[in-house]
């Protein structure tokens, strides 16, 4: 077990944000966290990333407690958060710079692998939204950590770009199989990408249910139109709807 979160609680002043979160990510597994907005997903990431410490419970990575320890995960935020004064290549080696000497050769090979080699020396302002997110993902990959935390990375993209980005992410991931914890509020996205899905409740957040996604890999777009996919989507949708009650 790579990442294990056990009975974690977190409150801010009077507000209880996380009531009881237990989840785990295996080596090479793609896990999605699915929940309504304001369900404390970013608090979970803050805890894993070491920006906050849990009030109770334990978070372990490779069986070591990581409370308050930063820089142990690869992270891809919702906004691409590329540094505007750095070229694409300089951006993706940034995380390596923090811990030691960057390996530019490896970085270049990665850009080539994902077809971005011609943008090596481009500045972020010259890239489209989808391309920026690809760069942000490669940057997370190059952090050399075994766990990648992806925080709604495609939510700001338009529908067409999003689908092609999801396919792109899967194709890159399948050649390399790092563990991924993927936060999303799109049922379809979670089902299409993940091996397992944790459905979260609204605040104070608990894990409502764990769904094992039975679809074989490699997956492609045609999966989205199959009966089992649609069926599972309906089931999860109903659960989320119950969760939100009249609010939906």
């Amino acid at each position, binding site marked *: 077990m790579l990442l294990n979160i056990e009975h974690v609680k977190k409150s801010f002043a009077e507000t209880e944000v996380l009531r009881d979160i237990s989840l785990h990510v295996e080596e090479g597994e793609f896990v999605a966290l699915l929940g309504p907005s304001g369900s404390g997903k970013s608090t979970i990431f803050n805890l894993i990333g070491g920006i906050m410490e849990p009030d109770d419970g334990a978070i372990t990575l490779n069986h070591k407690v990581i409370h308050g320890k930063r*820089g142990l995960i690869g*992270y891809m935020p919702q906004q691409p*958060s590329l540094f505007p004064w750095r070229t694409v290549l300089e951006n993706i080696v940034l995380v390596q710079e*923090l811990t030691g000497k960057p390996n530019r050769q490896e970085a270049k090979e990665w850009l080539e692998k994902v077809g971005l080699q011609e943008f090596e020396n481009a500045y972020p302002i010259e890239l489209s939204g989808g391309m920026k997110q690809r760069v942000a993902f490669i940057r997370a990959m190059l952090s050399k950590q075994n766990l990648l935390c992806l925080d709604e990375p495609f939510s700001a993209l338009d529908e067409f770009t999003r689908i092609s980005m999801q396919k792109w992410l899967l194709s890159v991931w399948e050649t390399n199989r790092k563990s991924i914890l993927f936060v999303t509020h799109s049922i379809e996205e979670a089902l299409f990408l993940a091996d397992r899905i944790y459905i979260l409740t609204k605040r104070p957040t608990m894990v409502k249910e764990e769904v094992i996604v039975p679809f074989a890999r490699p997956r492609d777009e045609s999966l989205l139109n199959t009966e089992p996919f649609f069926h599972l989507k309906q089931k999860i949708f109903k659960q989320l709807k119950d969760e939100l009650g009249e609010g939906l």
Partner: protein
Amino acid sequence: MKWLRSNGGAIIVLLFLLGLWEIIVKITGTPAWLLPAPSQIFSEGFKVIPSFSTDILATTKLAILGLVIGSAAGFIIAVILHILPIVQKMTYPLLILSQNIPIIVLAPLLIIWFGFGLLPKLIVIALVCFFPIVVAALDGFKNTAPELKYYMQMAGASKTQMFWKLELPYALPSLFSGLKISATYSVMGAVISEWLGAKQGIGVYMTLSQASFRTDHVFVAIFTIMLLSVLLFGLIQAFEKLFIKGKIER
């Protein structure tokens, strides 16, 4: 061509004002000791250039040296205040107060304290130059995009890395805005410091001209100061283009 397109408007307005001035002086027959016509100022300027150039050079050197010292001090102060917010809270009002000291009054005191050497002059220039840099740099540091800061935290950046890799480069455009203001102030600062006792410089030339009622020479000095400020401003702008890569989306 590009330069002309972006600055052409300003040049036309300037020429128009000079023309208006020329005509008014000619029509009213104003005597030259009261207000010389621009044409007279320029022809006089060309005449005195050989002897005046040493003064210009002295002031330029003084202004640049003062600007370098003042902006270095401003930058260091800004960094310290940024790293230590408590110190910032305690001393920021003092910094603002330092800008309310009338330089004209302070300068003679500085000469009493430090003599007629270079030091009091540099203090005067540095005093007018450091403040814009402090304000600009502090604003730049403070306005660093929160999502980039958050990313750096998640990536495990230390405070030092956060500063050198994110906050400083992010603040550069703002820092250059401050530097441009300081550059234009530095020439004025140099001239004021020269009024109080110097062997050469535009300030000295100005005082001598004024004492001998050579109003045209006073105006030559004024125009030179303006030109010098604009040139320094341009120099900083050139550095800015050199240093700032990509573009910050704000």
